[in-house]
């Protein structure tokens, strides 16, 4: 395939893929699931601190 004379060079991110990934992550976070609740601090942490 003949593309003609070279004009420039560089680097570009595939931002369209990134935007899809972000949307999927947001959807995951908004799921109202009881199993995900333990991520919040509890009154009795299993690992002693202090």
């Amino acid at each position: 395939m003949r593309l003609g004379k070279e004009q420039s060079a560089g680097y570009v991110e595939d931002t369209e893929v990134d935007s899809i990934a972000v949307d999927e992550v947001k959807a995951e976070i908004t799921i109202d699931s009881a199993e995900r609740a333990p991520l919040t601090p509890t009154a009795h942490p299993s690992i002693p601190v202090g």
Partner: protein
Amino acid sequence: MGLSSWVSGSARGEHPDRPFTGYKLAHAALSADGAKTGFAGLTMGAGHVYGVVAEATCVWNSRHQSPRRWCGCGFYCLHALTDALSLGCATENRSALLIEVAASGRYIRYERGLRYSRQRVRAIKQAWCGCGRPGVALADAGSGLVGWRHLAPACDQCVAGRPTLTLREFVARLDGRIRIDEGPDGLAQLPGMAAPAETTAEQPFAVLTAEIALLHARLDNLQARLDG
């Protein structure tokens, strides 16, 4: 490898904020077990099948990253759809699909297109049957690679009796989602050529009937001379 090691000149290190849109030709491919589909290149990339998202590798020298200035490696695409349509007119490219891609990663930009390292196929824009009608399915092209059969577009009339994969079935077996463009610049009639009129199929019979009538008239004339 840093960018500065393979680019030079005033345009070193361009950083556009979005990938380029490009157009190219590729052969449709179906895996030997029929479970997966992909795309095969036409020239340098003809020995490999790629999916919806793919990274370019140099087939000659795996020690450098694609595209390298003094090497022909990397994915190729054209800026203009019309240039890709022109490329599709060549005899050896007639059975290829015309696809739209998002070109990203490292790239070298030329007057008519790009060489680049990362590709994402967005859409199938054209798939013409060898007879000139829009292709609605893909049939065995009679060629392929180890593990992959090349598929060629075929219209609803030419697929009769042949095992085929519809374009939608082909897309469903890819490793990602892409569009099938059926709009004005998508799977349309060949530019400058009209669909045949319904009476066209009858024309050969009409011509044959006229020729037989003429032959009869000449025979009558000859008989009349012999009788006279």
